[in-house]
């Protein structure tokens, strides 16, 4: 069962205190252009995965697909985690951004959902504070020091978002029992932002508590060596729910960074194919996990709980304008009109 935490959320005050720093007041602020009629304000998430080649001969027997029989996991707790970041505007030496994370829970025996939202948190990232911000947040989340340097301000904001998401994943996998835990992304460790030891912790925590951890990617850098096509193309001619893999052993470079078995799966008839990472040696068979995840999928094949986690953490255009206003007030910023608008008023 999910840890009983009625009325109590995960403790994040320490992280919030670390990331929501102050900057010198009176700086000019150029808000990002927001159109209220835009329903989805796009924000880039995560570092782009490098392109690695995969040796899969489509004529080989291993490319045979396994059928999925969707089964709604009514008796199992389902938890989905996602996070988002947005740049609210530019300041002379950086930016002010906001991040938010969501945890969606479907309790065992029920179909309704509950939601925990962490954020929005206003984060000023400048060339002057980004190193300290990055390293202190890394330590606050993972409990270890890093000597890595912060990337540019925009990427640093996304890394901070990633740290918050990983923190929540660590807490969820470390407190839940016998749950289906859905994450957005993949199970890659050993990157600058995601130390291998931490990712291993997430995986081992999960397995020891009989959880089924599933990472779902809408896109991937893994590419078939012969055809130079993305691995998602492996299911191009398959329309019924099915999966293919594990293909991790066929990855030609740095495969030790991949901590899970790697599959390509179509979870709903005519739905989109996704890359799905599942840790090896799970208490429940991978085939059974696929059946349960497919049971949660809507027509487009994406699991409902992950969709809810995403939709509840993204910032609406209304919220972005509110947050821009909050940033101006909180940091004593002065509004600066966008140069293009000033030059081309109509």
């Amino acid at each position, binding site marked *: 069962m999910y840890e009983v935490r009625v009325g109590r959320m995960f403790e994040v005050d320490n992280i919030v205190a670390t990331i929501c720093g102050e900057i010198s007041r009176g700086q000019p602020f150029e808000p990002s252009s927001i159109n209220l009629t835009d329903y989805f304000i796009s924000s880039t998430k995560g570092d782009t995965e490098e392109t690695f080649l995969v040796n899969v001969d489509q004529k080989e027997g291993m490319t045979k697909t396994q059928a999925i029989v969707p089964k709604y996991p009514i008796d199992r707790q389902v938890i989905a985690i996602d996070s988002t970041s947005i740049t609210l505007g530019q300041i002379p030496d950086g930016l002010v951004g906001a991040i938010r994370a969501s945890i969606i829970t479907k309790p065992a025996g029920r179909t309704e959902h509950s939601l925990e939202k962490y954020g929005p948190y206003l984060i000023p990232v400048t060339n002057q504070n980004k190193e300290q911000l990055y390293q202190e947040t890394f330590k606050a989340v993972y409990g270890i020091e890093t000597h890595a340097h912060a990337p540019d301000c925009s990427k640093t904001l996304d890394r901070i978002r990633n740290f918050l998401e990983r923190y929540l994943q660590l807490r969820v996998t470390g407190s839940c029992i016998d749950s289906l835990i859905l994450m957005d992304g993949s199970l890659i460790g050993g990157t600058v932002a995601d130390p291998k030891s931490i990712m291993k912790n997430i995986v081992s925590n999960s397995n020891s508590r009989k959880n089924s951890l599933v990472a779902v990617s809408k896109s991937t850098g893994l590419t078939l060596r012969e055809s130079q096509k993305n691995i998602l193309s492996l299911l191009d001619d398959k329309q019924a729910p099915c999966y293919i893999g594990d293909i991790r052993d066929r990855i030609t470079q740095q495969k030790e960074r991949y901590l899970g078995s790697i599959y390509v799966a179509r979870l709903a008839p005519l739905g989109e194919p996704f890359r799905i990472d599942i840790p090896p040696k799970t208490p429940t068979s991978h085939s059974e996990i696929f059946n349960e995840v497919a049971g949660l999928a809507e027509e487009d094949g994406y699991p409902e709980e992950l969709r809810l986690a995403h939709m509840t953490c993204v910032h*609406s255009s209304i919220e972005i304008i509110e947050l821009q206003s*909050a940033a101006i007030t909180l940091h004593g910023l002065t509004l600066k009109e966008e140069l293009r608008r000033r030059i081309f008023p109509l």
Partner: protein
Amino acid sequence: MYLLTKEADELAIVYSPEENLRIGDTVRIDGIVAQVVDIQFADLPGVLEHILRKSLVAKTETREHIQPQVRSVIDSLTDQRLAIAKIRGRITEVIDEQGNRKKIFKTGLSEFNISRAKAEIKVMSQNDLFEALGLNFPISSDFGKTLSTEPRNLEVLADRLGINLITGMKGSGKSYSAKRLLLKLIEKGVLTLVFDLNAEYLNLWKSNETTPNKYANLIKVFTPRLHRAQANEQPLLIPLNEVTYDDFATFVNVQSGSPTYQHLLQFWRDRGGNEFDLNDLETFSDSAQNDAVKMALQGRVAAAQALGLFGPSNLTTTITELHKTGGAIIFNLAQIGQWERSIIVEFVLRKLAQLGQSKAIRAVSLFLEEAQLYVEPQNMVNILTRMRHVGIFPTFITNDPRTLPDEVFTLLDNLIAFMFRNEDELRQLAKSGLIDQKSIYALKHLESRQCIAVGNITSNYPVFLEVNPQAEVVMGGETRKLVG
């Protein structure tokens, strides 16, 4: 607050929830005066999507950890308000006869020179508004208080009453307010006659079930068919010569054209305009030659005597006496039939007209609750057009304004309107021309005892107000519950 649009005489003002604004408030935009008649959410693009996204998971199942410094800003844009305000006119400065500068209110707007970006929008204080309207309420005013960000007590000024209408749906507080107005008029030394259809005004002279209040000596109740006077209540008697032979025949159930009817006609004609009573009719009956007619007449006279409606009346004396001090005469019409009501009302109106014409009285106020139930249309027009010339000022009180003739709305001097939900009734009120339809629609949102007053009593400026409670008076009028 920012001015968003102007369409005809309507302004749309955007403001944040922290800026207090409520229906009834008057705002001043540079020189322009506008009154808030409706409040909505500002319909921003993207709000629907924002709300829909929030509603994906039930509010009860959602927990949030928000950065404390950001919390107050979140949802502030979603909660932006839009006030719809009607342009009422403008404030201009004039120099009075003493050479003092004075601000006065003028209706109409021939020019519109305000900036949407720079115009300063301020809620006008009720004191400033009333001063500009030339409304000088005494400090002791307590009839009601304005519905505005800063409420102010006000009074219904008796010298501004003319033809008045108090209306509102059942339970909206119209009768309560009519009674408050009645008591105020007594305090001003005005005599009011009330046709009380539901016996609601009978106990206004009591502070509780057993104790008289300060109005006790000034309130008299006349009840038909009452056999002897008790406390402030006395029998309402109509002298027989005040009704026609036809009315009497109807009352005692004599068929028109029958020999008995012919005898009644002869009795009335013989006496011309002289006074007579049931004793005279009894004597006349006894002298009838035809035995059948004699018996029929004697039986009818006995029945009329038993009912106790006809007899010598002291109404004239009561009216002239109370006219000197101010007071109220309540005609209890609750437990009698339609015919008797009409007879009584006609008698009272005739008496009032006579007293007015002879200048025995200068002016009186007349309260008519649901007048359509006992005043003939012709008499209604008479009340509206002629009686005010002899000093009779009617106040109609009804829960359905559609039952009143159009003349009421054409000639109306003052309207006090309480809550209505029915749009037909709201449209009917707009016929008065005292207030526009959009403003009158604000009545839909009012609570019990809240109303719009407009007309001479408010210098024709619609004032939203809440009628104050009355202490030390049994106000009555509560609807009984089926259970408990």
